[in-house]
């Protein structure tokens, strides 16, 4: 027969709470982040959509008004890093001149882990209508291959 031990119950509760905190990724609970706080730019921007067809993976990033010269796209293995800067307005404007300030502005950086192996030498990027489009051709071994069935 087990004896009731109040400390054991408390210990279990404590480890359960610890687990919740361990699970909390910055995305879900930024206030639980204990590491050195990153700058503004390290948030998950720009937002991206990923598309896929037989030969290519496409990434569409929402970046209206970004400076096209500031884009910096690099690849290391399956990690793609996307960075750039969006300026609020051309030239210097005094803060008191603003009547409304709703648009987000600033530097951004984002790491994307690609779902498949791509051929880094053939990656193409295009900036059109405020959307950054990346064409990432899949590497030969990542492409789907049709296997024919032989009937004996």
């Amino acid at each position: 027969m087990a004896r009731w031990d109040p400390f054991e119950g408390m210990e279990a509760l404590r480890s359960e709470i610890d687990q919740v905190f361990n699970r909390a990724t910055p995305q879900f609970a930024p206030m639980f982040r204990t590491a050195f706080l990153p700058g503004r730019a390290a948030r998950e921007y720009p937002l991206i959509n990923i598309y896929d067809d037989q030969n290519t993976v496409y990434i569409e990033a929402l970046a209206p008004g970004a400076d096209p010269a500031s884009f910096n796209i690099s690849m290391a293995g399956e990690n793609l890093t996307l960075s750039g800067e969006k300026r609020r307005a051309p030239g210097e404007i005094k803060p008191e001149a603003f009547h409304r300030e709703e648009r987000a502005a600033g530097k951004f950086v984002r790491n994307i882990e690609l779902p498949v192996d791509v051929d880094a030498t053939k990656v193409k990027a295009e900036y059109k209508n405020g959307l950054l489009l990346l064409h990432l051709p899949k590497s030969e071994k990542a492409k789907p291959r049709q296997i024919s069935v032989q009937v004996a």
Partner: protein
Amino acid sequence: MAEKTVATTSGKQTGTTMSRERTRDQERYIQPPVDIYENPEGLILLADLPGVAPGEVDVRLEDNILTIQAKAKHAITAEPIYREFELFNFFRQFELSDQVDQGNITARLNNGVLTLELPKAEKAKPRQISVQVERAAA
């Protein structure tokens, strides 16, 4: 420049109505975020319209109401495997005062940002009035 929170229907010339109350209107609209700032010549309005091609934006001025309406499209038609954003059509209205020179508003769309220049009307510009000093009769 006040914002119109209740959509105003457009006039008869175009025959299209832009009221959001119609049950037939299946399309979804969102308000684009804007920055408005002032410079000596007038007001500059910047609106983020991602995914809008230059031909798909409609800026209209009618009865002092400035309407921005735009259609946004995704650039890629392949099968989506991961999604973080959707593109909706944009709609936003502002009420202009007569301090804006309504005949000389210019608009341009660049990299998904609409820039509207609203010059000040002559009467709204600051004017220096020179003071004439009358010489007292000696």
